[in-house]
Structure formats: structure tokens, C-alpha cells
């Protein structure tokens, strides 16, 4: 546990130190929130959504922020590889599982902070949360998204030599995951086959879970969301640690 904490501490320290990254990665979500939210608020009406379209996409934008931050946090292992720091960790008498878990929780924590920042911004532009327990539920879902996708990032980073493949992963994996998640549109309104894709996307359950927590209603039962997302998280942590164990430098 000490080792996991050590790795976690390092991630968080590095994160809180790079203010520019912190603010920089808020840019895109805030942009989407304002442009889509205010731009479409009067045009789009979502049935059963009291807070309008902007209320509808806030959980989506929060998920997006958590998703991107956590994948990026995982992939940062490549930097450690290139700048040599990874060797320092790997040559120590500690298990790779501990290292991987520390990195994962560290990344998930930074992602959660990033998500909470969007949440605070949303309060400023008028979001009304349904209840405090609901807010806590939303936090649990943010954590699950953070952990699973940091682990996913670590899995990818374990197989990548340098950052060249990063764009590829962003464009062909992460953006589709975000786009298909029902973060920006209600799942119900989709044609049948796209809806199936949406239901295959793990992030969907995160978005819906957060939506339930913050707004008090969602299309998918939050209990189902929790079970599926937890399962996905366990799978990703297993997958990430398996690949990380075989990382070579």
C-alpha cells in the first residue's frame, strides 16, 4: 500500500504543479459546454429534462473531461519511458502491480479533479444538482471512469515506443468512445443500429450514471450502469497490469 501511495503522490504532485496543463485541458470541455450548451439550448428540447439541453450535456462534458484526462495520464508512462524515470521504478524491489495501481489511482485522481472543475463551472452557469447523495453518486461514476481509462492508457503505453501513436489512439479510439457515449444526445433518439453501438460503449454507462446523480433521472438504470462500469474497470485494471508487467525499456 505504501508503494501505491508513493506512486500516487508523485502523479498528483506533478499534476498540481503543471498549472498550464490543468487550465489547458479545461479549454475544450468549457468550449463545448458553452457553445453547444447555450447555442442549442433554445433549439433542442429533450423530453423529461427540466434543465434543458445545457443541463443534459453537463454530465456528458464532465465525463469527457474525466475521460481525456485519465487516458492522457495513463499514456504519460511513455514519457517516463523516454525520460528514463521508468527504469528507476522498475529496478526497485517492488512489484509491477503496485506500480501500475499507483499510477492508475494517481491518474484517476487528477481526472476526478478535472471533472470536478467542470462541475464547479457548471454550478456557476446555473446547474442545479438534485441532491447531495446524488452528487456523491456522480463522484463514484467519475472515479470509475477515471480508473478504467487510466488503466486503459497504461495498457496502450505499455505497448507503445513513443508518442507517435498517440494521435491515432485519440482519433480512432478515444473520440469514438466519447462520441458514441450519449454525452451530447439522448440515446433514445438514435436509429437502432447506432443505439447498439452506444450500448457497447462503456462510457455510456458512466455518462448515464453521472446524469442520474446530478440531475436525478437517466435513461439507463443507475444500478445497471454501476455494475457494467465496475466490471469494465476491473477488466481494464487487469488488462493494464497484465501488459504493464511485460513492459520493456
Amino acid at each position, binding site marked *: 500500500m*505504501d*508503494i501505491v501511495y508513493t506512486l500516487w503522490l*508523485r502523479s498528483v504532485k506533478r499534476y498540481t504543479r503543471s498549472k498550464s496543463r490543468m487550465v489547458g485541458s479545461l479549454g475544450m470541455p468549457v468550449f463545448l459546454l458553452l457553445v453547444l450548451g447555450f447555442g442549442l439550448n433554445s433549439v433542442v428540447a429533450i423530453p423529461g429534462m427540466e434543465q434543458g439541453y445545457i443541463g443534459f450535456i453537463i454530465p456528458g462534458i464532465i465525463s469527457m473531461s474525466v475521460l481525456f484526462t485519465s487516458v492522457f495520464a495513463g499514456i504519460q508512462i511513455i514519457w517516463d519511458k523516454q*525520460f528514463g524515470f521508468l*527504469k*528507476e521504478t*522498475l529496478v526497485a*524491489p517492488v512489484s509491477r502491480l503496485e506500480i501500475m495501481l499507483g499510477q492508475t489511482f494517481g491518474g484517476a485522481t487528477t481526472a476526478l479533479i478535472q471533472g470536478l472543475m467542470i462541475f464547479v463551472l457548471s454550478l456557476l452557469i446555473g446547474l442545479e444538482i438534485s441532491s447531495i447523495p446524488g452528487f456523491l453518486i456522480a463522484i463514484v461514476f467519475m472515479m470509475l471512469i477515471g480508473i478504467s481509462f487510466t488503466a486503459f492508457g497504461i495498457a496502450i503505453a505499455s505497448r507503445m515506443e513513443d508518442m507517435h501513436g498517440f494521435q491515432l489512439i485519440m482519433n480512432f479510439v478515444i473520440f469514438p468512445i466519447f462520441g458514441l457515449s450519449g454525452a451530447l444526445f439522448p440515446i433514445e433518439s438514435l436509429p437502432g443500429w447506432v443505439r447498439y453501438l452506444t450500448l457497447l460503449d462503456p462510457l455510456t454507462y458512466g455518462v448515464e450514471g453521472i446524469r442520474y446523480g446530478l440531475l436525478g433521472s437517466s435513461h439507463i438504470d443507475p444500478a445497471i450502469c454501476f455494475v457494467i462500469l465496475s466490471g469494465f474497470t476491473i477488466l481494464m485494471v487487469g488488462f493494464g497490469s497484465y501488459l504493464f508487467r511485460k513492459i520493456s525499456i
Partner: protein
Amino acid sequence: MKMSAITVKDLTKKFGDFTAVNNLSFDIEKGEVFGLLGPNGAGKSTTMAMLSTMLKPSSGQAWVNGYDILRNEDEVRKSIGIVFQDPSLDEELTAYENMDFHARLYRIPKNERQKKITELLKLVELDEKKDNLVKTYSGGMRRRLEIARGLLHEPKVLFLDEPTLGLDPQTRNHLWDYIHRLNQEKGITIILTTHYMEEADKLCHRIAIIDKGQIIALDTSEKLKNDIGGDIITIVSSEKDNLYSVVESLPGINNIEVHDSSITIGLHNAEKHVAQIVNMASESGVPIDSISIHKPTLEDVFLHFTGRTIREEEATGKEQMRMMQRSRK
């Protein structure tokens, strides 16, 4: 269980068809400073990587501090401290934080951590800058920090892979002093790689000269130099083959070798024979461009065993790359 600090037996590493380390065998005693000297690509770092459990050997065995590197990875890791050839610090953290991270990773109890870190940072004279981010450090400061970090958990064996590569002569001397003192005062066994002759000469009790993955000579620096036969006369001449046949007959020669642009003659009391050689050459009409005498160095030993000089110019190129890499951020 073996009693030596390190025992290596037929250690081999292949990358595909290429054999980087070829059947290495040697023994390092406790408290010894042992040097692996060789040109770029000789297989020094690969050997270090295998001994520090970072790389699996293709065949062969090795024990570090009595523990099998294959079967007892964790114990080996606990026994060693390592300074890698390439930088391995977290530049976004301060020196103190880098040390603290290491201390926690090696499970040094909380109450000792701070004291030990401060003590070591003082030793390498970084105490005053301990709260500065490592990215603001110079190459020499980083190297000293890496050495301090490698010592934090009091390893029995310290691995230093090119510890002074890319440092200025002054810092280099400084580091040599530390390394020497560490060995003297704490009795730490040290295995270091280098392609600086002077470094090997000054620090190491015994030196293994390694080339193309194989040990070509292993002894004390003294013995290695003596074994190539007294002093060395180097003669540069455009007709070196003719020169060779002229001086061949000179009495008292221990060995004579023809190289790319010169001839080297190994013999005792060289001063006394120089005049004679010059006379013999001019009598036979063989021109001599230059002639020099020196006491043998490890460079001569290397030349003697491999027929090549250790390619320091390549090393310089690599150093520059390394320095560039370090200042990239």
C-alpha cells in the same frame, strides 16, 4: 550461496542473431572496485542490465550479493544501487522529492528517511538546492543526485554505468573522489563501466577490458600495463613496413606491432634505444615522421589486445547527444 559480491558465469545476451554479450565470466570480491572498460557497443550496459535484473540473459548465470539474478530478483534488487547510463530522474520534481520517492520505494522507515536524504544531499553538495526542480539542474548536479539516490538504501553493491560521461574534468574529478571515498569508508562494492582510461586507472582495483561482448583481458591496471612489455615507442612513418623490417632486429624488443599509421615497439628502458632506432632508420633510408616514448597506458593495453584504439571520438559524439537529451526540456 557464493561469498563474492558478484559472480558471473558464461553470461550471454543475444538480440536476434546479434550477440551483445558473449560468454562473460568473472568474479568480483566484496569491497572491490571493478571496472568494465570498452568502446561503444562493447556490451557494458547490457551486462549491467542483466546483473541488475532489468534484462533476462539468453544463457549463463550470475549471482549478486549471493543471490541468483534469475531466481531471486527481489533480493538482488534490494542489494543493489544503480546509476544508469541515461538520465533517470523525474525532472518535474525537486531533488528532495526524487530522493523521497526513492526512499519510499525502498521502504526506508519514515523516521530515518529525512535524516538520510539530508545526509546524502550534503555528501554530494546539493543540500542547498534540494528544493529546486531537477529540470533546473546542470548535468553534473543531476549525476551527483543520481549517485546520492543510488546510495540511499545502503546497497551492498553499487552499479555505475558511465558515471562521469559528459561531465567537465573538474566535476569528474570531484565524482571520482566521492566514489573512492564511498568504497573506502563504507566498503561498498562497486562495479563501474567506462570508456575513459583514466577513470578506470584511477578508480578500479581490477579492470576487465571488454570488446564485442567478450573479455579480452582482466587484471589490475598495473599488471595489464606491465604485461604488454615495458615502455612504448611509437613511430609514425610513411614506410612503416620497411621500418618494421629495419627495427625488427633490434635487441631487447618485447613486442612490435604495425598499426594503421604507426608502429609501436614495446621494450624496457626505451630512452636508451631511441637514438639507435633513428640511426638504423636513416642508414636504411627509411623516413621517420615522428617518434615518441611513453609509459604504457590502458590505451596501449587496449591497442595491444584489439589492434584498435578505443574510439573516443565516437564517445564524444554520444556525449553530445546525451547532453542534448538532457537539456531537451
